[in-house]
């Protein structure tokens, strides 16, 4: 089978600044991989590179056996952008049906995607009239509606209430159990514990790539937040404390 995503020596420059600095990692199929890191660490750029919409300075990205951005991948990859990208002047249902149609799916699949994200009650509402959290779930429905093999979700649970967040994570795990690969970014550490595997990036570098349990064990603490802090400090100490 191989990995869903294989990244080698990925370097990305944006606006004269090095945003990703030599990242190499793999993402296993049929699992939920968390992409963790503070705001501005390069999470979104990494995801854009995997989806194939980011101009890459150097390095290779293989997605489902093909170079990232290959035409065939557009049928297999679902992408949720950080800012909800749905049509504000259409209803939730009209949005879902349009993205379903692009993937060759019908109305039933669109309705299912809407109820999967808990928006069945608002399906007939214009997106412009939704709350921020509902809007981002409408966007999520459009990313999942094509039943993609690989789902890239950029901060899908921001602004959701705790019950909905738990529901969404249960949904992500159900998708993974059915064979879908998920790469989910977050800057909230309590979500990290819900992932099968974690990639932690900071200032464009990968500083951890392991299961949550292994990361806790390596750092010798139970709290993931504290574990990451120790990893970052250990990394800074190894590079001679040069980081300011």
């Amino acid at each position, binding site marked *: 089978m191989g990995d869903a995503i294989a990244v080698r020596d990925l370097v990305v420059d*944006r*606006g004269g600044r090095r945003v990703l600095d030599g990242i190499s990692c793999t993402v296993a199929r049929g699992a939920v991989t968390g992409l963790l890191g503070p705001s501005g660490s390069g999470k979104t750029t990494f995801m854009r590179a995997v*989806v*194939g*919409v*980011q*101009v890459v300075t150097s390095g290779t990205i293989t997605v489902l056996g093909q170079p990232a*951005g290959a035409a065939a991948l*557009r*049928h297999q*990859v679902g*992408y949720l*952008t950080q*800012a*909800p*990208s*749905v*049509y*504000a*002047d*259409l209803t939730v249902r*009209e949005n879902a049906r*349009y*993205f379903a*149609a*692009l*993937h*060759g799916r019908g109305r039933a699949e669109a309705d299912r995607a809407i109820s999967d994200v808990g928006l069945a009650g608002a399906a007939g509402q*214009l997106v412009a009239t939704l709350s921020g959290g509902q809007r981002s779930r409408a966007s999520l429905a*459009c990313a999942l509606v*094509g039943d993609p093999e690989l789902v890239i979700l950029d901060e899908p649970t921001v602004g959701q209430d705790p019950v909905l967040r738990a529901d969404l994570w249960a949904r992500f795990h159900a998708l993974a159990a059915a064979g879908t690969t998920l790469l989910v970014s977050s800057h909230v550490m309590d979500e990290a514990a819900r992932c099968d595997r974690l990639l932690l990036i900071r200032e464009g570098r990968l500083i951890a790539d392991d299961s949550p349990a292994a990361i806790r064990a390596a750092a010798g603490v139970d709290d993931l937040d504290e574990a990451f802090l120790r990893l970052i400090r250990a990394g800074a100490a190894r590079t001679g404390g040069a980081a300011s």
Partner: protein
Amino acid sequence: MNARILAATTGRILRQLRHDRRTIALLVAVPAVLLTLVYFMYADQPTPPGQPSTFDRIALVMLGIFPFVIMFLVTSIAMLRERTSGTLERLLTTPLGKLDLLFGYGIAFGLAAAVQAAVAAAVAYWIFDLDTAGSIALVIGIAVLDAVLGVALGLFCSAFARTEFQAVQFLPVVVVPQLLLCGLFVARDQMAGWLQALSDAFPLSYAIEALQEVGANAEPTGTMWRDVAVVLGSVVLALVLAAATLRRRSG
């Protein structure tokens, strides 16, 4: 291109339009209101013997210019919204082809322009007694073609605008010179040579000449068909250029 995706995209754009009742009202009513203005402007002007009245001359050209200008503006803004809302980037990660999107806009706004042109032509012919030698159907057909030309140029120009402020500036840059030199204000053969050359390079000049041919001749003329072909060619060229400026990858 893919027929299913093209149809879904055209439907989606029309649905967006349908939710915006005020825009529909403006699209349909504004050309008719402006024609009314033109009618009363020229109501008391004497008509030179053996020539069409000034209103007939101006109104016929206006029937082509309104859809061109309005659809250029509407398209520039619509496409810019696709860019700034992130939907464009998302669309380009789906199986949608660039031409599906561009032709979707062309067809959807072309249909809207057909309604607009039909209403404007009905007002011009039946309320204000516009008189043309050729048929009203040809006038409406050419007006729709002008609208599609506006859409295609709008799609192409929106690639060069990052903000709404920039997008609206393309109206004076791209549209106004074509209006000035299309033969409405000064006959094209009476302009200085270099202006004529510019006029020859602008697609709107051919669109207006085609309408004038319909105004002066009972049957479609060879010049009219050539003009229609030139405008169609310009539409295709603008759409291909627009597709070339749509990048799936950005920095």
